[in-house]
């Protein structure tokens, strides 16, 4: 009841404000009249009586103010007043307002961009039920990290583990869909029956997969398709359930359609696309020794990841005893990690770096604005003095000034929010495949709330110090002095300190940006061991069922190659699998055949046809290329790269035998050639040895390499036609220049570089504006002093020297402090760098030179003004 009454009164107060004022006015004047009459009754003359009555009352204005403070809703009234006042006062100085809002909008916009990114990538839970119970199980075995589980192990985990509810497998594959006379290559996945239930997703149409029914003796019988594919190719027809389509040259039934908007979020090493269009059933055959399948599982309710890992360690000890062939005497290790953590593990350091850089940008913006407010404040001192004289308390003035700050910050946040939208779009374009989960990036309510929160925070950051200084009236007496005075030494010292802070803060982002630039340049110059220029690639899949024998497959491949070779603009053509820097690489354990006991080395394996080395431009150092004779079955030869040759046979590799270990099997290959070291997995990775085998019994797909000056887009129709003419029954995909693979491999560094460069540029720009603003202001304030100096015989050069010296002094002090901060930050991002140390002298020196140039630039305009000072005018001005 009481609250209801109070709320009613609050509204009455807010709406009936004028009447309340009138009432108060009448009440107080009635009081004064009454007292006056009393005094008259005591014999005073009327004038005196009234004066005494007023005196006794003690300041009607003050009483009114105190009464108003008791009125409910008074705070709202005041805030509204302050806001109106803030708008009026900001409108009076548009230049100041525009600079402040622009500065803050940069700072807030950059931070909102990062907030949006962090939220999408790190903070927003995955869109599955209870996502913090979904884990990936990493399997390290046979001295190979993350080699995947065998099906036997998955079956055993299901049967024995008490920590997991579901243990399922997923394997990213490709699908070639033939429907209505059109062939399309689609991202696909093979999944065990409980994989989709694990993610809590059910088909919107039809049923889930059951490998007992849907996987026949030799072939898949049914698939699930995505909502997207259903709408695109099947016109969203519900009758599609039960329809037979051709996928990978097999007739399969469509069993179900997954819900609209379902996306698959898995760690990058699974290399599964977010949008999977075709889902194949995947029966778990416990007897298969094949290793390499990623495992996802769901923790039972209440089971911690630590407990699950403890249990996995006891289970893996059993597996080592039970499946000796799968471990070959080595130790195994199973590690469960939260799915979300696994997805974001590789980008955390980068995100940390960017967040730190962006926080610096905001701090610089705040310092900048604080400085501007201080400078403006000394101009406003008179206005504030008047308000104080009229009875405004310090709290009231601080409140008013902070309201002004908040209005500025909110306006900046609105612009910053718009900027963040553009920023996130730009990041989306930049990092398509390098930032997991970034498809979820959007400007939503939390981001908008963050904008409001940031503006409150920044308004306090940049507003509190100037407000407090101004309200405390440190320069009391300006009211009496009839003209503006030079700012107090204290204020000038504070402004200089702020500029030093600003320059210092801009060093860290600059240094990080510089280090990233150096890393990127080093990566661009890294010796790849091949030449990606003027090469167009295309991956050609073919069916092992259609071509069961190696000879048949090679005949098909030769047919394709011959057809492509005759295309206009083609200089030469070859094929290999996989391509260097392709996302999927085959790794094998290898060693010297004559040292069977030695611990094996991990190496990448590649199939190639004769002539491949020439087309891709890998120099042959020793020995020979493959020949047609090497393609004959049973020809166990290999070409190794220099890294491998040096490691295994420092005495000379040609003629030696390379042992390749596979589960329960060892192949010995004769080394016929040695090439330059090739970077196959990543441009960054220089140490993984590589070996090639002649095209043989393995691949279900080969990648064409076409040496041509034409673009991939120009070549695509010809390549498609050539593959179709060879009648392999599948469409080529990934028709793109070889340089794309290289660009992708260093894309994470390029992404970091570009974003950091943007932040570093913003911070330098802000620091330059701050430096210039402060110098211009301080110089203007000293015009009189300079005039006097000139009049007393100082040379113009000496005066200009004072200004330039001041700028350089401020900048170098800032740079010195900033270098210390920068060292702490760059040390933390060591792992993101390539080929440079965090303390890279060239970078740090470059940063200092840049800052010195900025300081000189900032000083130039004020110095030029000083040089034009006319002593007479300057002494007369004011």
């Amino acid at each position, binding site marked *: 009841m*009481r609250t209801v*009454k*109070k709320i009613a*009164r609050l509204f009455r*107060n807010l709406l009936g404000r004028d009447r309340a004022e009138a*009432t*108060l006015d*009448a*009440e*107080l004047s*009635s*009081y004064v*009249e*009454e*007292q006056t*009459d009393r005094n008259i009754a005591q014999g005073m003359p009327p004038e005196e009586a009234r004066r005494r009555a007023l005196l*006794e*009352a*003690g*300041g009607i204005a*003050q*009483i009114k103010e*105190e*009464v108003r*403070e*008791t*009125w*409910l809703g008074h705070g709202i009234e005041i805030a509204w007043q302050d806001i109106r006042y803030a708008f009026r006062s900001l409108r009076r100085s548009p230049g100041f307002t525009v600079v402040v809002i622009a500065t803050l909008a940069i700072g807030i916009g950059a931070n909102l961009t990062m907030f949006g990114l962090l939220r999408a990538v790190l903070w927003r839970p995955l869109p599955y039920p209870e996502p913090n119970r979904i884990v990936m199980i990493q399997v390290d075995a046979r001295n190979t990290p993350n080699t995947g589980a065998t099906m036997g192990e998955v079956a055993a985990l299901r049967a024995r583990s008490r920590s997991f509810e579901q243990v399922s497998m997923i394997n990213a594959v490709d699908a070639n869909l033939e429907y209505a006379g059109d062939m399309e290559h689609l991202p696909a996945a093979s999944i065990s029956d409980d994989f989709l239930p694990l993610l809590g997703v059910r088909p919107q149409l039809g049923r889930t997969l059951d490998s007992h029914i849907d996987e026949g003796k030799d072939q898949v019988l049914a698939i699930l398709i995505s909502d997207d594919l259903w709408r695109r190719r099947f016109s969203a027809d519900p009758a599609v359930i039960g329809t037979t389509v051709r996928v990978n040259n097999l007739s399969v039934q469509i069993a179900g359609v997954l819900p609209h908007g379902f996306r698959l979020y898995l760690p990058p090493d699974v290399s599964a696309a977010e949008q999977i269009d075709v889902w194949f059933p995947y029966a778990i055959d416990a007897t298969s020794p094949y290793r390499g399948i990623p495992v996802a599982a769901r923790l039972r309710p209440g089971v911690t990841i630590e407990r699950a890992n403890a249990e996995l360690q006891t289970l893996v000890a059993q597996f080592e005893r039970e499946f000796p062939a799968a471990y070959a005497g080595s130790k195994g290790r199973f590690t469960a990690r939260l799915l979300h953590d696994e997805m974001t593990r590789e980008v955390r350091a980068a995100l940390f770096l960017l967040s730190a850089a962006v926080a610096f940008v905001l701090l610089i913006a705040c310092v900048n604005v604080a400085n501007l407010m201080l400078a403006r404040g000394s101009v406003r001192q008179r206005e504030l003095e008047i308000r104080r004289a009229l009875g405004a308390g310090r709290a009231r003035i601080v409140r008013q000034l902070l309201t002004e700050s908040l209005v500025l910050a909110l306006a900046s946040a609105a612009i910053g929010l718009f900027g963040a939208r553009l920023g996130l779009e730009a990041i989306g374009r930049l990092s398509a495949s390098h930032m997991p989960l970034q498809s979820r990036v959007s400007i939503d309510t939390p981001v908008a709330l963050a904008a409001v929160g940031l503006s409150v925070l920044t308004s306090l950051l940049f507003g509190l110090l100037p407000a407090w200084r101004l309200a405390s009236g440190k320069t009391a007496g300006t009211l009496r002095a009839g003209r503006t005075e030079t700012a107090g030494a204290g204020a000038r010292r504070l402004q200089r300190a702020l500029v030093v802070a600003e320059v210092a803060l801009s060093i860290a982002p600059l240094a990080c940006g510089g280090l990233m630039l150096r890393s990127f340049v080093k990566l661009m110059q890294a010796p790849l061991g091949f030449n990606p220029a003027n090469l167009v690639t295309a991956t050609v899949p073919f069916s092992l069922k259609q071509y069961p024998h190696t000879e048949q497959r090679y005949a098909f491949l030769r047919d394709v190659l011959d057809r492509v070779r005759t295309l206009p603009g083609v200089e030469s053509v070859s094929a290999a699998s996989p391509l260097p820097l392709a996302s999927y690489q085959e790794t094998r354990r290898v060693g010297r055949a004559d040292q069977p006991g030695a611990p094996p080395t991990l190496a990448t394996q590649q199939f190639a046809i004769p002539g491949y080395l020439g087309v891709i431009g890998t120099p042959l150092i020793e020995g020979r290329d493959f020949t047609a004779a090497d393609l004959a079955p049973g020809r166990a030869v290999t070409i190794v790269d220099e890294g491998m040759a040096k490691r295994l046979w420092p005495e000379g590799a040609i003629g030696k035998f390379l042992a390749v270990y596979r589960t329960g099997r060892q192949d010995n290959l004769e080394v016929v050639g040695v090439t330059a070291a090739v970077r196959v997995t990543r441009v960054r990775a220089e140490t993984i040895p590589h070996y090639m085998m002649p095209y043989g019994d393995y691949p279900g797909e080969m990648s064409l390499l076409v040496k041509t000056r034409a673009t991939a887009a120009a070549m695509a129709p010809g390549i498609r036609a050539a593959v179709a003419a060879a009648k392999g029954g599948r469409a080529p995909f990934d028709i793109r220049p070889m340089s794309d693979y290289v660009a992708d491999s260093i894309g994470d560094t390029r992404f970091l570089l570009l974003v950091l460069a943007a932040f570093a540029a913003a911070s330098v720009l802000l620091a330059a504006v701050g430096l210039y603003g402060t110098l211009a202001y301080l110089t203007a304030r000293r015009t009189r002093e300079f005039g006097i100096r000139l009049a007393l015989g100082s040379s113009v050069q000496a005066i200009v020297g004072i200004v330039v010296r001041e700028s350089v002094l401020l900048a170098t002090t800032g740079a010195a402090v900033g270098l210390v901060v920068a060292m702490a930050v760059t040390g933390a991002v060591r792992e993101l760098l390539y080929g440079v140390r965090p303390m890279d002298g060239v970078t740090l020196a470059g940063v200092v030179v840049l800052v010195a140039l900025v300081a000189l630039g900032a000083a130039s305009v004020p110095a030029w003004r000083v040089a034009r000072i006319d002593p007479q005018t300057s002494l007369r001005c004011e």
Partner: protein
Amino acid sequence: MPEDALELLKGTLDLLILRTLDLRPMHGSAIADRISQVTRGAFQVKAGSLFPALHRLEQEGWIAGAWEASNEGRRVRSYTLTHDGKRQLTVEKKTWRRTVQAMNALLESAG
């Protein structure tokens, strides 16, 4: 006869006003006069504290103001104790008595 005026303790002014209005509705200066009279000049309530207090009590809903003609025929704003105000007065009286008892117990304890 009157000793020096006492300084008003925080919160006692509310009690004084509520108690005064318990007799009959009164306007500002009448309340001040009445308080001064009853306390034999110990409490002199100045306009600077009287009017903010009246308005605060009114905002709380304990007293209600209305324009009336005073005895001298002047238009004054007269305040009436409301139902809520009466209840508040009882509460504050009780609190005050306990305070006084506690203070007395302390002052009259041995030593």
